[in-house]
Every structure is written in C-alpha cells, then in structure tokens.
C-alpha cells in the first residue's frame, strides 16, 4: 500500500495513545503499592514522606500475620493435594473414555468455578454447619478444592488432548505394564502441566476470600481474611507490605511455571 493519509495516521496514533493509557491503568494499582509499603508515615499518604521498614517489621513482629500466613500455607498445601488427587484421574477419564455422559460430567466438574463464590460458599456453610466442621483447616481446604479443582481439570485435559497416545501404546507393545508405561512415558510428558496446575492452585487458594469467610473461624483466619479485616476498618500501609509479599509470591510462582513449561 502507498503512504497512508494524514487522517489514517492520526487515527493510528489515537489508538496507540488510548491503549497506552489502558496499559497505565493496568499496572498503576500494582506499582503504587510498592512505595507505600516503605512509607514512614503512620497512615496512608501519597507520596510517602520518607523511607522506612516499619510495616515489614510489623508483619514479622505481630503474631496475627504470621499465624494467618501459616494457616493459608496449610490450607493451600492441602488444597493442592486434594485438587490433584481428585482432578488428575478425572482428567484422564474425561479425555480418554468415550462415555456418553462425558460432556455432562465435564460440565458438572467445571460448574462450581462458573458460579459466584458467594453461592458455593453459602451452600458449603450450611452443609459444614450441619456436620460441625466449620472452622477446620481440612474443611476449608475441601471447600476451596471444590471451586479450584476445575482449573486443574481444564489445564490437565488440555495437555492430555495434545498427547500422542502411540507413545504409550509402543511401551505396552514392548512389554511394559500399564503402570510402568504410565510412570516412564506418560508422567514425564505431563509432569510440567501437573506442576503448573499445582502452582496455580496455591495462587488461587491464597487469593480466596469468600469460601474462607464462610468456612473459617477466628482460629483459622487465612491471610486473605486478615487483609480483609484490616481494609474494611482502615487503610493501613501494613496491607501494602503484605501485598508486596503476595506480589513476590505471584512472581515467584509465575517464574516457576515458566521454568516448568520450558522444561517440557
């Protein structure tokens, strides 16, 4: 094409300018947290009047934050185990078995993820109250697993769909037992997807607030609940310090996922 007209060029720059503003919109609320977390002020003020580690110090010194982090870690770990234990075999069956009801099963397994967490949380709250297991770490992990496991199924089934089954069949022909073929052929190929799925489960479990609001008690307050309690009352810069730690965790996990993908 020959040189574009002036109006076309103006149009193009208008689009670039607009998208540039959207990019600023996307990164601003994340970046703003970092300077605030080092603020020397006792309350939220921008720009921070000076540099200080006081909020990070408060995080380490106040036992409630460490306790909440510990609860979140336990819940996330248990949630990973549960999501994989239920999600992995299900993913294999969904991709490989040609049941007439497979689409229905798929829809059922994914549906908790599509509903608002409040709805699922309330339903679980009624059930767990009846069973008397609200406020337990196990119950909390089980509740989160219901809404988080669908992600595992989505990730693993999409990997399995691209998996060449002839590799497995070759192993079987050469005399490997199904279990050996799985361990030596299938598992190494899908391991990166499993690791990525597990890491995302950790991220989502730490992120969950609603299931935890319904299912935890003060002794099992997760980090999300501690943040929630501290932002509804006042906007303390200590939340910025927690947020920076959580951001660090997200970046670490995304880095690990990238490494797992490259390894594949």
């Amino acid at each position: 094409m020959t040189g574009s007209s002036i109006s076309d060029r103006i149009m193009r720059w208008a689009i670039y300018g607009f998208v540039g503003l959207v990019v600023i919109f996307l990164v601003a609320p994340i970046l703003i947290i970092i300077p605030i977390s080092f603020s020397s002020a006792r309350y939220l003020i921008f720009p921070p009047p000076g540099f200080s580690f006081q909020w990070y110090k408060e995080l380490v010194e106040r036992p409630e934050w460490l306790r909440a982090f510990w609860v979140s870690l336990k819940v996330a770990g248990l949630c990973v185990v549960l999501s994989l234990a239920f999600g992995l075999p299900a993913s294999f069956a969904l991709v490989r078995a040609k049941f007439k009801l497979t689409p229905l099963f798929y829809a059922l397994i994914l549906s908790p993820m599509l509903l608002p967490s409040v709805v699922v949380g309330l339903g679980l709250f009624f059930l767990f109250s009846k069973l008397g297991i609200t406020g337990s770490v196990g119950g909390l992990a089980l509740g989160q697993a219901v809404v988080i496991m669908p992600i595992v199924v989505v990730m693993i089934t999409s990997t399995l769909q691209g998996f060449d089954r002839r590799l497995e069949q070759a192993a079987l022909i050469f005399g490997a037992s199904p279990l050996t073929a799985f361990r030596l052929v299938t598992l190494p190929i899908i391991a990166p997807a499993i690791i990525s799925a597990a890491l995302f489960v950790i991220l989502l479990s730490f992120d969950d607030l609603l299931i935890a609001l319904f299912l935890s008690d003060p002794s099992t307050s997760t980090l999300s609940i501690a943040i929630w309690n501290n932002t509804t009352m006042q906007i303390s810069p200590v939340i910025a310090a927690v947020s920076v730690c959580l951001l660090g965790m997200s970046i670490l996990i995304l880095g690990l996922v990238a490494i797992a993908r490259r390894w594949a």
Partner: protein
Amino acid sequence: MSAIARLRNPKASYALMLLPVLALIGFLFIYPMVDMVARSLGSTQGTLTTQYYAPIFSKTIYLRVLWNTFEISLLTTLVTLVLAYPVAYLIATGRRPLSLFLTVCTLIPFFTSLLVRTYGWMVILSPEGLLNEALGLLGLGPVALLYTRGAVLVGMTYSLLPYMVLTLASVFRGIDPGLMRAAGLFGASNVRAFLHVYFPLSLPGVLGGSLLVFLLAIGYFITPALLGSGRDQMIAMIVYEQVDRSLNWEFAAALSTLLFATTLVVFFVYARVFGLGKALEAKR
C-alpha cells in the same frame, strides 16, 4: 491378570477414576445447592413458602440492591468493552513484541490477588492518595473518589478487563486482515472499512465477552465492599451480611438462589450462542 483385564476393559477403570470426583461434586456441590434452594423455599419449616423471597421484591432496600447489581454490572461491561476493544485489536493485529507486551499487561490483574489489586485502587483513590495529590498540585481541592460508585466501576473494570480482552482477541485473530485491505483497495476509508467490514465480524467476540463479564460481575463482592459506599451494595454482599450479622440463613438462601438462577440464565444464553464447550472454558 487384572492388568490384562483392565486393558481389555478400560471403560471400567476410567469409570473408577471418575467416581471420586463425581462423589466430591455430588456431596460438596450438588447437594449444597439443592439444600440451599430447598431452604429458600421453606424446607426448614416443613412447608413450601415464598416468604423468604417476598422481601427481596417488596422492600425498597433490597430492590435497590438488585438494581445496583444490575446497573453496576451493565456499566462495568460497557466500560470494559470500550477499554478492551483497541487493546485486543492491537494484540490480534500488531507485531509480535507489541502483541506479547500487551498480553502480559492484560494478564497482570489475573495473577495478582483480588485483595491486593483492590488495595492498590484504595491507595490511588483515597483522600490523600495519588490522584488527589496530583489534583492538589494543579490547585484543585481534594475530591471524594473512594467509597463512590465511580470507584466501584473502576475496580470492577480493572478486574474483569482481562476476560474481555482475551475473548475479543481470540475472535479478532480469526478475522482475515485481507478483508480490510480489500475494502481499502475498493476505495473505502479506514474508518468506513472498519465500520462495515471489521466491526460486524467482531460482534461475536463483543457479545461473548460482554456476557462473560456480566456473568462474573453480578456475583462480585470484594470490590464493591471495599471501594463503594452503603449505596453501592450488591447482592453478593447482602448474602454474606445475612449470615454474618443478621443470622437470617433462610433469607440468605433466597438471595443466593436468586443470584444462582440469574447466573445460570446468563450462562445458558452464552452456551446457546457459543456452544457448551466454549462456554465452560471461557472462565479459566
């Protein structure tokens, strides 16, 4: 023997692999949902009643909440669409480095905790936050930004933007760029070519993204609770409030059932338009 038998009849072993997850979903999802609906209809009293639904549609405060939920979700969907369209366009048609950069930026809200993002907006919008300090430098007085309807819209748009951008970009990628060039060769200006060729082809993405964002928006809780005022209450917030403060479980069940039913309706419209498989994978 058992290994050979299993090889011959893999269906049985696959059924065995599905059983635990179906049991989990049945016990921790289907049963609680049925119980919730039953409770909202009076199962705890032993009689069928609509008394728990009556206040939702007769008391002004609850009608107000329903309207808020609808209005905020609709506005969020529109704003998200306007912001996402050019971004998705550049992702789909731009050169590789630009497209990758924009995709990464789009995914930022996806991978950061919802509470962290919302806190970031509180810092920007608070009375002594970034925007008000900037206004102060221009000699303009502090403006109430936080705890307003506008703040809720900004926060929700921020969280839901990735869903819109990704849905639009996947549709835009399927549009043949040659069509726009052909329109240009036949003398159409870029604007005309866009309006008559590109835009109509992008409509499935617009519809899909809008339904998805609306579906997710009506269940929002954290953002309106932290960035809005009492006048910006949405339905998910009062569901939790009924359990947390009022201890009115049956009323909470009725509100939640309403939200559940609305979500299902929007979802089925989506599934009808785009097919169930696509609908299920939309929200990853």
